[in-house]
C-alpha cells in the first residue's frame, strides 16, 4: 500500500486512527504492529513472511549477541555472531535485490526474475543498525518482541524511510504518548507531504516521461526534462518523508529529518548533508567511520569514500547506472575535499550553480537505467542531438508551467519560511489550505481512473 492512494486515504488510515484512539494505551502498539503488517502485506502478501522472518531472526540475533557477551565469550566468538547476523540480513537483501543483476553479469542466460519486496532496503538497514549496535553495546537488546516488531515494521517509515537507527528511537518504542502539538503538527505535515507528492511530483514526473519518451529532444527540452525529474524526485521523496514523519508524529514518534532544502546547497558535500540525511548518517555510522573515516592516510580516505559511495549507489538500485551514479558523486566529493572545497565555501553563488548543474546531470544518470538511452539523453543535453520535432514545447509549458513554477518556488527558502509562518500563526488559514489541498489530491488521484467509453459514438 502507498500513502498516496484512495485505499490508504479513505479506508486504511481513518480506520487505523479510529481504532488506535479507541483502544487503551497498552494495546496501542499491538494495533500499530497489526496495522503495519496489514499495510505491508497489502502490497506484497507473500513477502509478509519475509518481514516476519526478518523480525524474528533479528530479535533472536540481538538476544544471542548479548548473551555471548554476558557469558564472556571471546571477542572472536562474539564477532562471529555479529557476522552471522549481518550476513543473514544482507543475504536477503542481496538475493532479492541484486541476484538478477549479478546473474545478468555472469550468466545472462540464467538470469532469474525476482520481484523486489517493497521496502527491503529500508528495513534491512534498520535491522542491521540494531544488531550492530547491540554488538557494540551501545544499546540493550530488546526483550519485548512486540515493540521490536514495531521498530522493524512501523508502517509510516517502512516503505521509503526515513531510516531510523535503533538507538535514536529506542526510548520511544514503548512510550510514545505524543502531545496535542505533535498531533496537529503531524497531521499538517502529512497533508503537506501528500500535496507535494500528488500535486507536484506526479505532474513533474509526467512531464519528464513525455520528454524522455519523445526521443530526440533538443537542448532546451532535454534540460527541461532533467529539471522536471529533479523536481519530481525531490517532491516525491521529501513528500513521502513528510507523510511518514507526519503520521509518525501523530502516533507520538519523532523521526529524524530526512531533507533540509537540499537544492540550496553550495557544494556536493553540502548536498549530501541535506539530501536523504538518514541514509548518509547510516553509512557514516556503520561503514565510513568503522573503515576509518577521514582519520587515515589520504589514500585510505579516498578508498573509504569510494567504498561508501559505491555502496550508496548500489543501495539505490541494481544496475550499472546506479553504480555509475554512486561513483560520480564519490569522485566529486573527493575532488571537493581535496581540491576545490575551500574555494566553493567562499564563493556561494558559483557554488550553487555548480551544484545545481552537477545534481541535475546526476539525476539523469540515476533516472535512466538503460545505458544506451542514458548516453543519448546526455548527448541531447549537451546539444549534440538534433531536435526531432516530436515535442511541442508550447504544449509542455502550458500544461506543466504552473507545476514547474510552483515546484521551483517551493525550493526557495523564503517561500518555505512563509509556509512555516502560516502554519504556526494563521491556524484557520492553514486549515483551509490543507483541506483544499486534500480535496485536490483526492481529485487528482482518481483522475487516472476516469475512463469514458467513447468508442461507440464514433
Amino acid at each position, binding site marked *: 500500500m502507498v500513502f498516496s492512494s484512495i485505499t490508504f486515504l479513505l479506508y486504511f488510515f*481513518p480506520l487505523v486512527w479510529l481504532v488506535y484512539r479507541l483502544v487503551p494505551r497498552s494495546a496501542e502498539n499491538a494495533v500499530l504492529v497489526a496495522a503495519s503488517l496489514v499495510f505491508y502485506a497489502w502490497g506484497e*502478501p507473500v513477502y509478509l513472511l519475509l518481514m516476519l522472518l526478518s523480525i524474528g531472526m533479528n530479535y533472536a540475533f540481538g538476544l544471542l549477541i548479548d548473551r555471548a557477551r554476558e557469558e564472556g565469550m571471546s571477542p572472536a566468538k562474539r564477532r562471529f555472531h555479529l557476522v552471522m547476523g549481518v550476513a543473514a540480513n544482507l543475504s536477503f537483501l542481496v538475493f532479492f535485490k541484486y541476484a538478477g543483476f549479478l546473474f545478468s553479469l555472469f550468466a545472462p542466460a540464467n538470469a532469474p526474475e525476482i520481484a523486489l519486496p517493497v521496502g527491503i532496503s529500508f528495513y534491512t538497514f534498520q535491522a542491521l543498525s540494531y544488531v550492530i549496535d547491540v554488538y557494540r553495546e551501545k544499546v540493550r537488546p530488546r526483550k519485548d518482541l512486540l515493540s521490536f516488531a514495531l521498530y522493524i515494521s512501523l508502517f509510516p517509515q517502512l516503505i521509503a524511510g526515513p531510516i531510523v537507527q535503533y538507538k535514536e528511537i529506542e526510548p520511544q518504542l514503548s512510550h510514545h504518548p505524543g502531545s496535542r502539538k505533535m498531533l496537529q503538527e503531524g497531521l499538517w505535515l502529512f497533508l503537506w507531504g501528500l500535496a507535494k507528492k500528488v500535486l507536484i511530483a506526479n505532474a513533474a514526473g509526467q512531464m519528464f516521461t513525455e520528454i524522455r519518451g519523445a526521443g530526440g529532444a533538443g537542448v532546451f527540452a532535454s534540460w527541461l526534462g532533467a529539471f522536471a525529474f529533479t523536481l519530481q524526485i525531490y517532491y516525491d521523496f521529501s513528500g513521502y518523508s513528510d507523510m511518514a514523519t507526519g503520521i509518525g508524529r501523530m502516533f507520538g514518534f519523532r523521526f529524524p529529518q530526512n531533507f533540509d532544502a537540499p537544492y540550496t546547497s553550495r557544494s556536493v558535500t553540502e548536498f549530501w548533508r541535506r539530501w536523504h540525511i538518514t541514509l548518509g548518517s547510516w553509512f557514516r555510522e556503520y561503514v565510513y567511520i568503522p573503515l576509518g573515516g577521514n582519520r587515515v592516510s589520504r589514500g585510505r580516505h579516498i578508498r573509504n569514500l569510494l567504498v561508501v559511495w559505491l555502496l550508496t549507489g548500489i543501495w539505490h538500485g541494481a544496475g550499472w547506472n546506479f553504480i555509475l551514479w554512486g561513483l560520480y558523486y564519490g569522485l566529486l566529493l573527493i575532488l571537493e575535499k581535496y581540491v576545490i572545497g575551500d574555494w566553493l565555501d567562499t564563493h556561494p553563488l558559483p557554488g550553487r550553480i555548480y551544484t545545481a548543474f552537477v545534481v541535475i546531470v546526476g539525476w539523469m544518470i540515476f533516472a535512466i537505467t538503460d545505458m544506451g538511452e542514458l548516453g543519448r539523453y546526455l548527448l541531447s543535453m549537451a546539444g549534440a542531438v538534433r531536435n526531432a520535432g516530436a515535442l*511541442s514545447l508550447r504544449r509542455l509549458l502550458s*500544461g506543466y508551467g504552473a507545476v514547474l513554477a510552483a515546484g521551483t518556488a517551493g525550493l526557495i527558502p523564503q517561500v518555505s519560511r512563509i509556509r512555516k509562518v502560516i502554519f504556526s500563526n494563521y491556524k484557520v488559514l492553514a486549515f483551509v489550505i490543507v483541506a483544499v489541498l486534500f480535496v485536490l489530491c483526492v481529485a487528482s488521484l482518481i483522475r487516472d481512473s476516469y475512463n469514458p467509453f467513447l468508442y461507440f459514438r464514433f
Partner: protein
Amino acid sequence: MEHEGQKQPNPTRKGFLLARVFLVLWIAVALVNALLPSKEISVRERRALAGFPEFTLRRVLDGRFEEEFEAYAKDQVLGRDALVTLNASGSRALGNVYASGVWIGKDGWLIEDPVRLSPENESPALAAVRRLASGWGFEVALAVIPEAAEILYDRLPWAADGAALAGTCRTSWAALLDAHPLPGVTVCDTAPALSAAVSRTQVYYRTDHHWTTAGALAALPVILEGLGKEAGTFELLKVCDSFRGTLASASGVYGTADEIDVPVPVGRPDEPVLVQVDGENGLRTSVYRLDALSSDDPYLVFMGGNYGKCTITTGETGKGRLLVFKDSYFNCLLPMLLEQYSEIVLIDPRYFDDDPELLLLSMQDAQVLVCYSRAGFLTDLRLNRIIPERAAGPQPDR
C-alpha cells in the same frame, strides 16, 4: 518574550482543535464513503464502475484483491464526477489547455488534436478506395472532411500553435494524396467551402468531434459536384440545444452546450423514404431518430447510429443508386442526398460483416461515395479489409 509566553497556549489549542475537526471530518467522510451503496455505472463515462472485488484467500495472496480494491476505491469515491470536474477546472485554471487529446480553446471551444500520420505510411483506406475505382471499375467520389483543427485553427489556444498545426494537417494530407495517386477517383476538397463558411455559421461543434449540419450544408455542393449532381437548398431547424459531446466527456470540461440542427428542404416536400437496417425487422420511414435527443448522445438523432448495412429507398425514380462507405460524419449529410438518388446503401465497415464481394456485385450500377472524417479515414483499417480484389469473373458451373 512575554508575548510568546502568553500566546503559546491559545494557538496550540486552536490548532489542536482544528486538527481534531479535520480528523473528525476525515473519518466521517471515510465512513459515509464506505457505507454508501456502490454505484453501478457512471453516466458521464458511459461505463460500468468497479464493484467490491471478490474476497478469497487465494486472491488476497495473489495480490489481485488488493489491486481491484484500489480500482473499486477510486471508482466509488463520494462525489466522483464533481471531483473530476474539479480536477479538470483546476488544471485549466493553472493554464493547462490540453486534456486527453483535446485542446481547450478560446471561448469554450474544444478541438480535437489531429491525427498525425507520416506520408510514408499510406493509410490503408486509400488503398481500398483505389481498388474500388481501378479494380472494380466504380465511379468513386472521395470526400474526406478535414479536422476542426485545420479549419478553426484560430480558436486553438496559444499553446497549440494553431496556424502551424493547421498547416501541417493540410500539407500532410496533400502529400498523402500526391504520393498515392487515385485514378478514376474524384477527390472532393471540402476545406475551402468550410473555411469560407466559418465567418457566417458554426461549422463544427464546440464540444464534439463532429461537424455541424451547417458545416455539412456548406460542403454539400462540393460533394455533389464530385458525384455529378446539383445541390438543392435546405434550411436548418434546431432540434437540440443542450448537446455536450464526446470532447466534453473526454476532456472533462463541461462548459457551453451545442445546438443540433436538421436540414429541411426548402420549397419541396419531404422525401418519402423507406429505411431498411440490416438486422432489424421492419422498415423505418425516417432517417432520423427522435428519441435519441433525450438520450446521452443526441447526435444519434441522425440515423440512430451506425450500422453495418442500411438500405434507403426514396420516391425518386431513374436517379440511380449510391453506395456509401462512411463513418458517423456522413449521417448528418445523408438527409440532403435523399432527393438525388433512388436508392442509397450505407456501409459502415466497422460493423459490416456480410459478404463484401456479393455486395459489390449487386451494386455494380451504383456510384460510390467514400465519406469520412479525416481522423476516421486515416486510422481506419476495416475498409481495406472488406474491399476485396476484383473477383476473377464468373466461374463456369462444374
